[in-house]
């Protein structure tokens, strides 16, 4: 069995599973946030009216809650959702609630690795499509809607159809000007936004072995944009070290068997990679940066679970050091722990000296929620994950998706810029 089959077999109490088997898998961790949380509360109210007990959760210690989409609250509906969420965690005894303004908080998918909340081999579900991100730690990490999350909270399990696995064998080493974001954009461009639909996208090979855990997180994050059920990389010593340095103990590795089967194998060579962008209005609408249209950008947005991890901010700082931005540029570190490290290591000074506005952790404008949304006709280059019409604001705004390096280089020139071409 491959790693996903092994995890799902273990979680459903079976000796083996195969693609298309339907299993009820026991869940190890479940996440909700300020959008899916109030949705769950609504489902609970409905169930109560139908006479179904919602008095207690199956295991509050396995549940954690993030405040990320609409925080800090910009208006009263969002503020009320945060109050609802706080009442919910208090009522059900959920201790892991990361509240803004109270130390560590941030984007749910970022907290999953920053706080070592998910372990290799876990079945981890969350009320957010980018839950796929955390598969980079070697977990089966899958996004669900809030009815399904409510079901997990009450029952501790959920049905899955065991997915086929597409294996991406990545060879070589990332060149200095290329990031994992470029690779995943390239893959999505090749496959289309439904090319991985209902499947696992697994990343392996010497290129992935060589990559940092945070780069693997970027790869798995955007498997969602290829329609995948989950993304995963086999865990290794780097994952153990990453989680251990964040307080985890007894990290055990789960790996696929030597004779694991994959539905298809795709091969990519990193040394040949170039910086890639996705043009409006699809993450699959990709081109190499040096062939990008010559548009006048209004904004560079460096944020989200995809593009504001510490490694992403370091890359941005390499470009912005000693330079000034020419267009509005926002950097929103994805969690307070990252913000703090950026301060301690001098990154914030580089950003502020360059003229950037540094904001608080939030999903913010990535999903058009608040904190820098786009006006009609505005054109933005962004380290985020989606660029559908209206995604970051006005329906007639445009978003180009890029790596943090390209977003930073473009902030300096005001045009879509390959970092190698920066003077």
């Amino acid at each position, binding site marked *: 069995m491959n790693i996903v089959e092994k995890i799902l077999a273990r979680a459903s109490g079976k000796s083996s599973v195969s693609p298309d088997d*339907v299993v*009820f898998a026991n869940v190890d961790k479940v996440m909700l946030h*300020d*959008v*899916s949380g*109030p*949705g769950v*509360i*609504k*489902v609970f109210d409905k*169930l109560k009216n*139908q006479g*179904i007990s919602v008095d207690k959760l199956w295991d509050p210690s396995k549940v954690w809650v993030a405040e990320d*989409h*609409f925080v800090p609250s910009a208006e009263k*509906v*969002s503020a009320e*959702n945060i109050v609802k969420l706080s009442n919910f965690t208090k009522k059900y005894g959920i201790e892991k609630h990361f509240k803004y303004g109270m130390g560590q908080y941030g984007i749910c998918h970022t907290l999953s690795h920053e706080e070592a909340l998910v372990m290799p081999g876990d079945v981890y579900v969350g*009320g*957010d*499509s980018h*839950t796929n991100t955390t598969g980079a730690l070697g977990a089966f990490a899958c*996004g*669900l*809607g*809030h*009815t*399904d999350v409510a*079901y997990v909270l009450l029952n501790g399990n959920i*049905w899955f*159809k065991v997915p086929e696995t597409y294996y991406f064998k990545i060879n070589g080493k990332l060149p200095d000007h290329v990031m994992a974001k470029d690779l995943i954009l390239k893959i999505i461009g090749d496959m289309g*936004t*439904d090319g991985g*639909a*209902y499947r696992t996208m697994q990343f392996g090979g010497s290129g992935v072995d060589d990559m940092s855990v945070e780069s693997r997180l970027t790869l798995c994050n955007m498997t969602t944009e290829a*329609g995948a*059920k989950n993304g995963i990389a086999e865990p290794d010593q780097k994952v153990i070290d990453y989680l251990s340095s964040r307080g985890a103990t007894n990290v055990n590795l789960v790996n696929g068997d030597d004779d694991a089967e994959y539905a298809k194998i795709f091969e990519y060579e990193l040394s040949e990679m170039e910086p890639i962008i996705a043009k409006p209005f*699809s993450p699959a609408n990709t081109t190499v940066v040096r062939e990008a249209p010559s548009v006048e950008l209004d904004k560079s947005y460096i944020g989200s679970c995809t593009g504001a991890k510490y490694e992403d901010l370091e890359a941005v700082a390499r470009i912005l050091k000693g330079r000034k931005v020419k267009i509005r540029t926002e950097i929103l570190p994805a969690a307070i722990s990252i913000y703090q490290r950026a301060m301690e290591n001098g990154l914030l000074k580089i950003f502020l000296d360059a003229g950037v506005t540094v904001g608080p952790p939030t999903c913010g404008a990535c*999903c*058009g*929620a608040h904190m820098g*949304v786009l006006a009609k006709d505005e054109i933005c280059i962004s380290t985020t994950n*989606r660029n*559908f*019409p*209206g*995604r970051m604001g006005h*329906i007639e705004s445009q978003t180009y998706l890029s790596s943090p390096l390209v977003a930073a280089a473009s902030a300096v020139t005001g045009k879509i810029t390959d970092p190698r071409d920066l003077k």
Partner: protein
Amino acid sequence: MKGNIIKYAQDNIDTDVIIPGQYLKVHDYAELATHAMEGLDPDFHSKVKEGDFILSGRNFGCGSSREHAPIALSYSGIKAVLALSFARIFYRNAVDGAFLLPIEIDQDAYDGIAEGDEIEINVSVNEVKNITKNQAYKMKPFSEIIGKIITAGGLFKYKPDQD
């Protein structure tokens, strides 16, 4: 189940256009319905009638896991979406929350059914009938688990132990 078609002849209709991100904070189902399809068709709310079906291309509902998407369509009156294929979370949400039926159709049905056509969906024989044009098409059968959850009326009413 009978209804009239609202056709969006395109692929990859994503959840950001079905219900734009700014409304994710809204959890009043009736209010969400007033913003359904706002990112693609601002006239949707005025033209949709109770019992209508949407017809669209490949990968309907791609993008976010927001259950707001099937909720907004369902509370607008949409009883089924017919599409060449569906994104997985939209499909799951539609079924597990019992909001609407996701019906996978083939290219002939997609090409043959037009805006306003009256359609009858007969799940028991996996058939989609175009009453207006007197044509019949096969729909892709639901998988076993999906069929059972739909029959039960949603995931919470489905009892796996009794299988």
